């Protein structure tokens, strides 16, 4: 029935679009899954620092830990697509004979800015799925990653985890005042669990039990991923050193994620001067429309 090639092409395009819609339906959640970067090979181990640590080493002295991150200031620009941060540190007065001895345990907690989060629950109402219940929580960390040499319940005590807010179940976020009185304790618990589960799914809450590795008898390193959807702001990195569940030393480093360049300008413009920003967008749209029509008119002649 199809007489011209254009008709065939049109039918083909429609079929592709139809397939696209169906594919989108199937892969909506898969699209959110992020590709994991390959594990970093040991690069630029800070030799000079290691030697310095060795020199200072005195037998019998109390251990202390120092650490830093590969990038203290991370720029979120137009090409930002998540970033991998290397956290490295050294144990002063290390007593362990080698990297493999497992004498020390290291626990690293990276926490983003706390903020307010609304969790909603869908319910089937007359055959349709819509949000029927919600709970608002305050002080929910935008990002929360735990990296350690061994599973955290093997290297720390329950008291330590509770008092230092280590582990998803010890996160201190609380129901917002005046927002959630109608909900039962059981409901609140479910909402809380849902927030953690969804944050984990978005790659914003991470727990990796074997992420920290000793490279020498005092040097250790770990990598953590900040995904593209991470909230900008300061991040607190806490490094704890343990020996047989005893906290020997701790160290805190800050890293900062900030919008920069065009990205920073556009974001400030959009939220600081929204009406002007809207007018600018419309001006661009009108200019683009006219530009396209004159370009294609010339091309047609």
């Amino acid at each position, binding site marked *: 029935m199809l007489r011209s090639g*254009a*008709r065939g092409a*049109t039918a083909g*395009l*429609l079929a*592709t*679009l139809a397939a*696209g*819609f169906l594919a*989108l*339906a199937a892969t909506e959640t898969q*699209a959110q899954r992020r590709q994991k970067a390959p594990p970093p090979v040991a690069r630029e181990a800070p030799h000079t620092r290691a030697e310095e640590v060795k020199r200072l080493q005195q037998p019998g002295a109390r251990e202390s830990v120092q650490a830093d991150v590969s990038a203290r200031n991370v720029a979120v*620009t137009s*090409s*930002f*697509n*998540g970033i991998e941060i290397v956290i490295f540190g050294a144990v002063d007065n290390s007593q362990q004979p080698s990297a493999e001895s497992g004498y020390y345990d290291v626990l690293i907690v990276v926490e983003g800015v706390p903020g*307010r*989060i*609304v*969790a*909603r*629950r*869908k319910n089937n109402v007359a*055959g*349709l*799925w*819509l*949000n029927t219940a919600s709970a*608002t929580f305050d002080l929910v960390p935008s990002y929360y990653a735990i990296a350690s040499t061994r599973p955290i319940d093997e290297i720390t005590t329950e008291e330590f985890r509770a008092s230092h807010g280590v582990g998803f179940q010890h996160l201190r976020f609380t129901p917002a005042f005046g927002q959630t009185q109608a909900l039962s304790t059981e409901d609140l618990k*479910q*909402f809380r669990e*849902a*927030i953690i*589960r*969804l944050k984990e799914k978005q790659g914003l809450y991470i727990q990796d039990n074997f992420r920290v590795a000793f490279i020498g008898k005092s040097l250790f390193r770990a990598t953590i991923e900040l995904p*593209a*959807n991470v909230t900008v702001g300061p991040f607190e990195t806490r490094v704890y050193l343990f020996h047989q569940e005893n906290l020997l030393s701790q160290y805190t480093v800050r890293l900062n994620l900030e*919008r920069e360049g065009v*990205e920073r300008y*556009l974001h400030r413009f*959009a*939220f600081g001067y*929204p*009406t002007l*920003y*809207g*007018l*600018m*967008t*419309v001006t*661009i*749209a*009108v200019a*683009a*429309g*006219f530009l*396209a*029509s004159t370009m*294609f008119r010339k091309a047609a002649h």
Partner: protein
Amino acid sequence: MHFYLPVAEMSANVAVLLAMGGAVGFLSGLFGVGGGFLMTPLLIFSGIPPAVAVGTESAQITASSVSGAFAQWRRRNVDFLMGAVLLAGGILGSVFGVQLVGSLRRLGQFDFFVAACYVTFLGVIGTLMMIESLSTMRKARGGLAVGGRRSGQHNWIHGLPLKLRFHRSKLYISAIPPFLIGIFVGLLAAIMGVGGGFIMVPAMIYLLRMPTNIVVGTSLFQIVFLTAATTVLHASQNQTVDVVLAVLLMVGGVIGAQFGALAGERLKAEQLRFLLAALVLMVGLRFAWQLIAPPADLYSISSPVGGA
């Protein structure tokens, strides 16, 4: 290559966005429609927050209809008085619509509402178009003459007050029906991220009985100004217009539309309408599926909107 979208606050694949703009541009050129009803759903299905999809798409529709409106104006196919009445209603509707989007977002019901709107309107319009195009095709095959516009018939609209003389349209009717149509179209534009041509054009032809050539020019004229106003309102009230996303879609869209228009010249009108109806129904069904299928996760989380 990825690009970080400043307002959507997410990283998006540039090639995918350009291809989406191009494909929808091709179809809108082919069918002579704005394409908002295809683009907004595609954006939502690909993970852009619905409110940002709706706000940003308004800007893209402005870009894709401005040159067409200008061409129609030069061919004297725009009834400015009619356009102004429609636009006055449209902006009023858009103001309400943008407020409604803000309130629904705060309540967490916007995603549901936008899906329900799409199911309702695309379902009705798609079904009507499908029936109409099939019956035209059947008549054409049977050798019967395809009926034209029935002019000169009077209906209830002529009994309304506030009559105005619309010279270009050769009509002397009340300003109330076009004003009401405008309000309705403005509401839909703000909530669904569409131009509203799919409601306005049939309303102007069948309700107001305007000449078809004037209908196309006038609706394009009103869509340009309505979507421009809606963009500014969304930006200022809800901060849901992403200029980077808009520009990427515009680039893909204007290029696709040129090729679509060329391909469209080789198809018969009723065949085009049949294909368009199929597409409209498909998008409607996709939204219906979202409403009735059990969700993968009953829970969802978001940052509070508007300082709630």
